[in-house]
């Protein structure tokens, strides 16, 4: 019935505008084709070509760049990024779920509003200033490091776990935003029904709530993985190159720090990243649709 109504609408009212409507989209498409399409194609092309005698000489096709991007230091960097992204996404998913649940079950409307606003802000903005805020707090000369004597206890911010700690600052809020509407969608009746059938709280979560939440939790996890994987500014400002990450390695090769004949390895690594990001989206979008089915 809905489909019929929709079709009838489409056939009557708006159709008068359609030719004009198409034209209004043209500038956007042209812009994306130029500003996004050309660099993307240049990256793709560069990833599969090489000019061994330096710039300007004959160019030929090769898969050598891609092979090189999956070996040695480049592969270590890729693994490092995957490890960091998996760790941070996992922690943020758990913490974000707990925090969102605490907010949803609390009776204070103000708290909910405050947490949501703060999350919207924190999830959107990290980067360089955030890295420096952490340096001032937990870096070598940081306020907490000095006052609590953390450096004597072996703490270093410029390490894998230091980065994890900083990444959580924008990933946890992102998870809260992603999961909170799903938590709101858990109906009171489901809990009541479970209770009436003698389920404990644990059983309710294990057999009712978590299965319903699973698509949105997994979707959130994948989204967090993608954000952590693509992050560059925070890591660059904080650790320099002491933790191997694919983004740092790409920046390094683009800056010219490569062996001769490997100038395009950076482009091949970029292509690796695009593949990972594409996979993330391919998993995320169907999950998002699926979670919308139960939680209207």
């Amino acid at each position: 019935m809905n489909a019929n109504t929709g079709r009838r609408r489409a056939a009557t009212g708006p159709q008068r505008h359609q030719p004009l409507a198409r034209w209004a989209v043209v500038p956007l498409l042209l812009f994306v084709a130029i500003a996004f399409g050309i660099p993307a194609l240049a990256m793709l092309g560069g990833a599969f070509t090489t000019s061994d005698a330096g710039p300007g000489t004959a160019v030929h096709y090769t898969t050598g760049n891609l092979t090189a991007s999956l070996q040695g230091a480049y592969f270590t960097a890729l693994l490092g990024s995957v490890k960091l992204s998996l760790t941070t996404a996992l922690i943020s998913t758990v913490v974000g779920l707990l925090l969102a649940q605490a907010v949803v079950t609390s009776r204070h409307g103000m708290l909910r509003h405050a947490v949501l606003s703060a999350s919207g802000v924190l999830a959107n903005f990290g980067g360089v200033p955030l890295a420096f805020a952490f340096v001032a707090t937990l870096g070598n000369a940081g306020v907490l490091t000095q006052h609590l004597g953390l450096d004597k206890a072996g703490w270093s911010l410029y390490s894998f776990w230091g980065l994890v700690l900083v990444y959580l600052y924008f990933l946890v809020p992102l998870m809260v935003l992603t999961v909170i509407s799903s938590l709101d969608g858990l109906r009171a009746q489901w809990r009541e029904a479970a209770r009436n059938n003698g389920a404990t709280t644990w059983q309710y979560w294990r057999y009712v709530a978590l299965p319903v939440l699973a698509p949105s939790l997994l979707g959130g996890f994948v989204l967090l993985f993608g954000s952590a994987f693509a992050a560059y500014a925070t890591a660059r400002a904080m650790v320099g190159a002491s933790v191997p990450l694919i983004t740092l390695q790409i920046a390094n090769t683009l800056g010219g720090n490569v062996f001769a004949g490997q100038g395009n390895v950076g482009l091949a690594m970029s292509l690796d990243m695009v593949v990972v990001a594409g996979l993330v989206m391919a998993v995320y979008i169907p999950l998002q649709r699926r979670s919308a089915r139960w939680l209207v």
Partner: protein
Amino acid sequence: MAGLTSLRNDTSLWRGGRKPRLRAGRGTILVVSAAYFAVPLIASVVYTVDDPVKGFTLSAYTEILSADGFLSALLLSLELATATIAVMLLLLVPAAIAVRLGGPRLRAVVEVVCSLPLVVPAIALAAGLTTVLKWGPEYLARTPFYQTIVALQNPNFPIVLTLAYVVMALPLAYRALDAGLRTLDVATLMEAAQNNGAGLIRAVTSVILPNLRAALLNATFLTLALVLGEFTVASILGFQPFAVWIVNGSNGAQGSVTIAVSVLSLLLTWGLLLMLSTGGGRRPTHEPRPTSGPHNEKEGTT
């Protein structure tokens, strides 16, 4: 809501022993989270005003303005932001309105095009751009395109950064605009305006746009925050707007000035975004969707 409240009362009668524990758990989570998110900010402020020798001082903040290159970097960022926002609105507003008037296929095309940048991380886009810019001296030196490539990289106003930032802002900005338009019956509004003798342009500017104020503001603020904080593309391409200046500046000796600038820019951007989430209208992507009219819901399901 009533259902939730009554449920809570039931629970307390039914299983009184659990409630305090649940509450304690919730309290712990909230307190620990609040501490985690507040401590870096507080500590940064302490770091900037507490000099090991002189004690309390505000000199880190007063020295910002005279810091080398600060003003020009900030100015560059603001110029880039203005240009990016203008281009973004000029491209997206007509497209977002057209999507509401046109068929479902048009909508699908625009949605896919605006989501494409999500698949290409900023660093990969920057890598592609450096490749394109290198074509200038390598292949195009004797063609008119060379001048274009040179103009794109004008250090006073690098157009190429604006292009990149518009691309990067597309997913967020489109979603913000589309969420605003979802609450309007654009087709009927346009028809009504035109039946009353308004031309196409006038119908859009005097009927649709005023109704879109919150969504336009959302898209603008999100883009502004993105451009002011952007580091990746600018640093790879070798320009020095605000965020790049902070990092480069930190290589110099004045650590506390760098931190002071970071604190200020965090507070400034957060203030902007907070204003948006409380004043200018809700963040549409994250809050539960506003209840839309029956017409819109039908459209959504087809």
